[in-house]
């Protein structure tokens, strides 16, 4: 296929073109349930942020199929180098809403120990979900290096690295794809083209015909997939992973999808997004699309959907309560994990600050708000 066609599996009416990739009933429902949990996580975080209980979150409405379809193709021994918008991949692989909520509140149980902003998750189990970084694009060459290590040791694992349309302009995109292709590293580059990079539309991000075509610059296959079609995403990923595991090297997948909300909970997209765009894409909602498919298999009813969403809301609401009630990280966490062992000068700074707190009381929290 040329890079301009869109790979799709589920037709708008829910029928398919036959490339369902053999998921069992349970697996199909796991995908569906995960998509609803992403939506529930989103809705919960939005409320938490609006009521000032967390500082920031990243909406995922519209991109659930991308993430879940792609994640469904991975083995637990593969590595995920996620972007900050990849809730679906985490949830698909069994990272719990509670683990994620600890990070949203930056509390003592946060795996990042309250050092990162919300949505900057880091997990090693049940799958390698590599610590998310804010600087865009840095994780692409990192994924290539991790994949090179797999190849050098003769393992049949692969790495998935996920990023946005904006991420294709980053330095890491260029060096990551180039090194991967030269080394034939077992890595899949997933560009989730959701139409926007904060307020920058794709037309101002690049003049190329598509994002997938950028693969040509590196000598690797590039495929364009309907990112709102969970089964198409799964198929494209499976093909790319087979290719990688067989030693043929990397693939660039462009998932064409849409960010139906703002960039983040602090963004006001009405300043720059044309209204008609949102309306058009609302019709292509990936959850509704998958529901129509499931209905053709007699796996879906409106009631089931409502029930699963309600369950997810309950689970996630409970997680939020627990996370909110968890203490903040202890002061010591400022000074640990800079190095494997705390060096002289940092130990002294820590001790001085504990001592000052004993003498003069604690520092008081500010009221700064995150802007974007």
């Amino acid at each position: 296929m040329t890079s301009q066609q869109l790979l799709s599996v589920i037709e708008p009416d829910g029928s398919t073109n036959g490339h369902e990739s053999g998921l069992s009933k349970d697996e199909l429902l796991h995908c569906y349930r995960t998509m609803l949990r992403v939506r529930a996580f989103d809705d919960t975080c939005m409320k938490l942020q609006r009521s000032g209980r967390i500082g920031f979150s990243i909406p995922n409405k519209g991109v659930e199929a991308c993430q879940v379809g792609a994640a469904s193709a991975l083995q637990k021994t593969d590595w995920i180098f996620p972007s900050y918008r990849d809730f679906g991949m985490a949830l698909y692989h069994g990272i719990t809403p509670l683990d994620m909520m600890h990070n949203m509140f930056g509390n003592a149980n946060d795996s990042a120990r309250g050092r990162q902003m919300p949505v900057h998750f880091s997990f090693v189990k049940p799958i390698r979900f590599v610590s998310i970084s804010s600087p865009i694009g840095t994780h692409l060459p990192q994924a290539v290096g991790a994949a090179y290590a797999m190849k050098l040791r003769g393992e049949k694992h692969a790495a998935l690295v996920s990023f946005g349309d904006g991420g294709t302009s980053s330095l890491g995109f260029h060096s990551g794809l180039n090194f991967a292709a030269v080394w034939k590293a077992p890595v899949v580059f997933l560009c989730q083209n959701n139409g926007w990079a904060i307020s920058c539309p794709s037309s101002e991000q690049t003049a190329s015909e598509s994002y997938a075509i950028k693969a040509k610059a590196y000598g690797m296959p590039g495929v364009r997939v309907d990112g709102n079609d969970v089964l198409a995403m799964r198929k494209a990923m499976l093909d790319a992973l087979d290719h990688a595991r067989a030693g043929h090297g990397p693939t660039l997948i462009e998932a064409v999808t849409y960010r139906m909300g703002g960039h983040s909970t602090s963004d006001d997209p009405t300043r720059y997004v044309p209204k008609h765009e949102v309306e058009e894409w609302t019709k292509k909602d990936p959850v509704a699309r998958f529901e129509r498919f499931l209905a053709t298999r007699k796996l879906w009813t409106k009631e089931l959907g409502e029930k699963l969403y309600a369950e997810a809301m309950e689970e996630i609401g409970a997680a939020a309560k627990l996370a909110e009630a968890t203490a903040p990280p202890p002061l010591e966490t400022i000074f640990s994990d800079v190095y494997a062992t705390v060096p002289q000068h940092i130990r002294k700074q820590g001790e001085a600050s504990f001592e000052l707190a004993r003498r003069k009381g604690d520092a008081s929290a500010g009221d700064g708000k995150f802007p974007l």
Partner: protein
Amino acid sequence: MATLTLVQAVNDALKTAMRDDPSVVVLGEDVGPKGGVFLATEGLTKAFGKGRCFDTPLSEDGIIGTGIGMALNGLKPVCEIQFQDFIFPAFDQIVSEAAKFRYRSGGQYTCPMVIRTPYGGGIRGGLYHSQSGEAYFCHTPGLKVVIPSTPHDAKGLLLASIDDPDPVIFLEPKALYRQVKGEVPEGKYTVPLSTLRTVREGKGVTVFCYGAMVPVCMKAAEQAAEKGIECLVIDLRTLLPLDEEGVLEAAKQTGRVVVVHEAPRFCGFGGEISALIAENAIEYMEAPIARVTGFDTPFPNTLEHHYMPDARRVLDAIEHVHGY
């Protein structure tokens, strides 16, 4: 005179410069229709058109690299880096190129440009939306490094930076963007670079600070005054080229010095102030030269208020050097 916040003063400066000089252009991520994530560039595209204020693809290397090219060829680019933490992809362009063009070409090619970027903590931004990287730039000959702490200075220093024939890194204390308000003259005026501002007179202890630490130090100085210690508080404003004579004079006035910044201590800007004094005025010192700084760790999130120097910590240092 209007009463503006610091970020409004920045916006006012940009508008003033663009109105006066058609060669001034503003570029960066989301600076166009959105007006920047802090709204520093709000309204510029509308007022001056897409050719003068425009969004770029997501590449800081591209923003600064093309900015340098514009500066070489007669424009005056004001590049915005969305957060100072994201300036590092452009570090090569800044350090290897903008800073060295004049020198390496014997003055044939020059880079009059301004790189504006919000820096520092206080917004719960964690590791990557809170850093203070001034020391990296201050160790780079060929750059100028400017940090305002009031709306008045923000406008006057930014206009002076845009007028300057050399590349200026203009670091805006994001914690103060909306926290401080002040009177700002209309139209064009400049605050000369490489001049200090005496925020408060005092004969007890000299406190050197800049950016978001200025109000923190002022609070500490007031608390110190209640205890009978009068502080001379100096807002450095331009870190490079620094008014070294002015610094030494202020240090000599009290013989007791506290240097304050948010950035990590080790190899930070404060060390340069201490070293300058230890090299040129040590015989005037009656106490250790104290530094109150961020810790030598990355910037945390939940506990950021413990990481950033506060009046409590500054006061403790003032008392320490005073009682020495």
